[in-house]
């Protein structure tokens, strides 16, 4: 048989491609549930790391089942809000059917274009509230969880992750504990533009809502800054009242002092 004829070549490549595609589709289908379980546990680890439920290393050393248990033990309430800041759904927190909004990309699109977004709010028994952020880094998406103290104003912790930022530069947003620890004690100025600043020399301004960008990772820092601000803006209507109350409280303290 002439293996160099055009017909043979076309038929051969077609068959190879179809067989390989079918095989890969089958494997992806079979492994899907196990991968989803891993992804879910990963989301919970990041969220609980930000919410200071356990130290990050401990969370990453724990098995998936332990993570689900830990979440079920520590979560108080989880719900979703729309872009109007009103609650529009409940997320199950029962141990055997934990619901999460794990896929942040479609939500990010809804925030930007307007639509029926379901932005998750996770409230832990400690009173700490965790919310996600998502945006575009240099090479791929960057995302993370920011946890707020019960006043919904002070940051209790943060955890950031990325898909393919440069190791040693942009990847520092995930790899370096000092970076996420810088966010602890900072504030989110709901309703202000920007609500948070992750910029060069931002800390020098002395503002409570500012963290320095990472040297050598300008685009990743910028991407994360946008991610924070786009999502903080979307959550602003929901948490804005908390910030307002906080302001009143400060005024009250100040008046007393006066």
């Amino acid at each position: 048989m002439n293996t160099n004829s055009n017909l043979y070549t076309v038929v051969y490549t077609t068959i190879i491609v179809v067989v390989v595609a079918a095989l890969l589709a089958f494997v992806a289908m079979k492994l899907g549930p196990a991968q989803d379980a891993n992804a879910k546990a990963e989301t919970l680890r990041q969220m609980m790391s930000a919410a200071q439920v356990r130290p990050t290393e401990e969370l990453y050393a724990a098995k998936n089942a332990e993570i689900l248990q830990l979440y079920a033990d520590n979560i108080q309430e989880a719900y979703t809000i729309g872009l109007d800041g009103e609650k529009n759904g409940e997320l199950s927190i029962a141990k055997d059917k934990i619901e999460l909004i794990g896929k942040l990309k479609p939500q990010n699109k809804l925030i930007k274009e307007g639509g029926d977004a379901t932005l998750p709010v996770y409230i832990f028994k400690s009173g700490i509230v965790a919310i996600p952020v998502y945006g575009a880094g240099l090479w791929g998406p960057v995302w993370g969880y920011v946890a707020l103290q019960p006043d919904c104003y002070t940051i209790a912790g943060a955890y950031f992750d990325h898909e393919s930022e440069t190791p040693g530069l942009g990847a520092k947003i995930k790899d370096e504990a000092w970076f996420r620890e810088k966010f602890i004690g900072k504030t989110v100025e709901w309703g202000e533009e920007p609500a948070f600043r992750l910029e060069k020399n931002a800390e020098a301004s002395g503002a409570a809502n500012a963290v320095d960008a990472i040297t050598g990772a300008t685009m990743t820092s910028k991407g994360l800054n946008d991610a924070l601000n786009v999502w903080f803006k979307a959550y602003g209507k929901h948490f804005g009242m908390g910030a307002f109350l906080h302001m009143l409280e400060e005024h009250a303290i100040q008046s007393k002092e006066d």
Partner: protein
Amino acid sequence: MAQKLKDTILNPILKGNPITVLILGICSSLAVTVQLKGALVMALSVIAVTGLSSLVCSLLRNTIPNRVRIIVQLVVVAMMVILVDQLLKAGEGTYAIDKQLSVYIGLIITNCIVMGRIEAFALGNKPIPSLLDGLANGVGYGLILVIVAFFRELLGSGTLLGFPVLPASYIPNNLVILPPFALILLGCIIWAHRAFDKELQEK
């Protein structure tokens, strides 16, 4: 025959080592050798991909149209790489490592060792020797990876496989964590290899 088989297995590990002699796969060996665990998973992944791709391509060798043989090889290698990636993502213990290795698992496809061995060996040899040749080349690559990662994790973090082995008074050397040090280390390994095996030295 036995001698030929022995050469097929030993040559890629020693005299024809893909990294130290053929200087292939340098990029990934700099990138994934910060920790021993990641290097081991990467090494096993590459061994699986080179072995199985060589086997499949060897089985198909008489049917592949010559004009599109590179494309067919590419499809086979890509399939193997995706399979490995999917399996790592599905395993509970390997998920975190897969995330850590991130793009480098997917980039195994661009590792010249894989396609190089298919083109040079698998297309002209029977399936079993091709499988062995692929596996041996993967081992040759993995061996160097593990050696580099051993020193980088030991000196850069003071740990091995995550367990602390050096006394707490040891201050981890940050230079060792950075890719340039891997290149320096690789140069030293190549130097040692050539000093040990005089046949590798040019006249």
